[in-house]
């Protein structure tokens, strides 16, 4: 997982969480829906926004891929795979 993509994901996830959680306080392995109350619509918004910010084409993913992204870590790892600059 690329550190810059993880940071971007943290920022954008924090922006949609209600109640707010600071980017640095997000547990990368916590279930986004169960622990942070991320609604399905906010998850869609978060992933759309983070893909744009990380310059990753959302078209790399299927609807099922999105359903499988349940933690910050899986989101960042999935984006890293398609970032074209994986290190």
């Amino acid at each position: 997982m690329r550190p810059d993509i993880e940071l971007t994901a943290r920022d954008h996830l924090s922006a949609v969480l209600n109640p707010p959680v600071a980017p640095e306080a997000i547990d990368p392995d916590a279930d986004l829906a169960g622990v942070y109350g991320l609604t399905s619509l906010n998850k869609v918004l978060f992933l759309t926004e983070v893909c744009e910010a990380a310059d990753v084409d959302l078209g790399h993913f299927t609807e099922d891929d999105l359903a499988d992204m349940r933690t910050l870590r899986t989101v960042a790892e999935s984006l890293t795979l398609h970032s074209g600059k994986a290190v």
Partner: protein
Amino acid sequence: MTAAPTGDLTGARPAPGCSVLNDVVSLPPAGGTISFARLDGARSMPLTELYELSGRLARRLRARGIGSGDRIGVLAANCPEWVLLDLAALRLKAETAGFDPGKFDPDDDLAGRYDLALLFTDRPATAPRTVPMTLVGDLLAEEDDPHEPPLPQVVWEPDDVTTVKFTSGSTGVPKGLGATAGSVDASLAAVQEIFEHKPGDDLFVFLSLSLLQQRYWVYSALAHGHDVTISTYEAAFATLRRTRPTVVMGVPAFFETAKRQIEARLRRPGGEDTLQEAARRVFGDRIRYLWTGSAPAAPAMLRFFDEAGLPIYEGYGLNETCIVTKNHPGAHREGSVGRVLPGKEVLFDEDGVISVRSDRPVNRAYAYAAPGDSERVFGPDGTVRTGDVGHLDEDGFLFVRGRADDVIVLDNGKKIVVRPMEESMRSGAAVAECVLFCPAQTELVAVVSPASLPADHAAIARQLARANASAAPDERIGRVIVADEPFSEANGLLTSQFKPRRSHILDAYRARVHDPKEGIHAS
């Protein structure tokens, strides 16, 4: 205006224009395009091609024994096959039953429980009479039989049921409700009269096609020659930017999410300069209007989009009534849910509880429900007791104040509708949600879901003072109990549509609600 009858006793085909549904099944569309969007891209086809494919699918289904009076179930994400099955069923005079993939399991004997001839699903399933959605493609790929007779002339009479829809009850087993062709036609005609969808329009649909109203916009496109875009739920935000629709069919939760997105873009360094620019970045630059319904919209959200240059129109209706009122470009009043549509009548009892009478009722009873359920909601003529409280103003605009169940009767006999005070509390940044109780008939007690953790008790106290300052004496809140954690679906205090579950919240905080020493006290 009332929908004209769609057939006479001889079964003769009604004149074109009398029934959108009968036009849709009988007449090739004059123009327009349907697009299907997924995360990995979009696919478009002329509506003429969609019509031809639906006819071919209808013939294939007929060859497998599906015909008038049979019922086809669909449990799948939005996709071309969903639309084709719906149209094919209409052309065979077969019923459909749309199942929300988030609420139903294809292996839960749906075919048996709901009398389905076939259940099409995109989920893994082994239940009897359950087939994969890919079968649609297989059927369409079969070679035409030159000796196959053409499809029969189909006429949908006003009382014919076209589809079974399911109430989105937050608890228990959803109730089934057969929607009549007359009610569909009446709603489509009324909506067309006030919004005038036409070539050049592109209506954006992302909510599940299992909701009949989302399929209305496909029927509307076929009848009126405009475009329609069907997106998966997951691709909604990404597709909006690409598609540049003129109309977005949404619900308050969607527009609240979009509002936060626009606000975040405005805050971002180097982001858009103006609210209007940020809004266009999300919705595209062709929006004529935004449609919201199915749940009450927050006034602040509605104002936000109006200020962003995207007119948003709230309406009112239940599964049992279809669309009853709607604000629209020609008649819009802030705070109302619009004027009553042609063919509908809004009635009030002595407590202001709204009932709706329709020239063409959706139905007069539920199709699948517990004994007594239908009688509690439907009158003998199909009049629906909504359970909502409201009034019409002098110009005929309907204002919905809350649920009748949410009316608190004080010991002085005064009736308090709780929603305005709850909304007043929610307008503060420290309060995410608020529900009111009246444990002793003398004092209103609020349980609030904090907007952040730890809860900002000082800000909540200030919000309490503000809300009380603008309220009538009987409506003032005596105490506020701050919930230990925000209400959520996970802790059972919000429904799947993000509405507070009052009884669950009271159960969770009963002791503190009833203890006069507990909570933040009004000054």
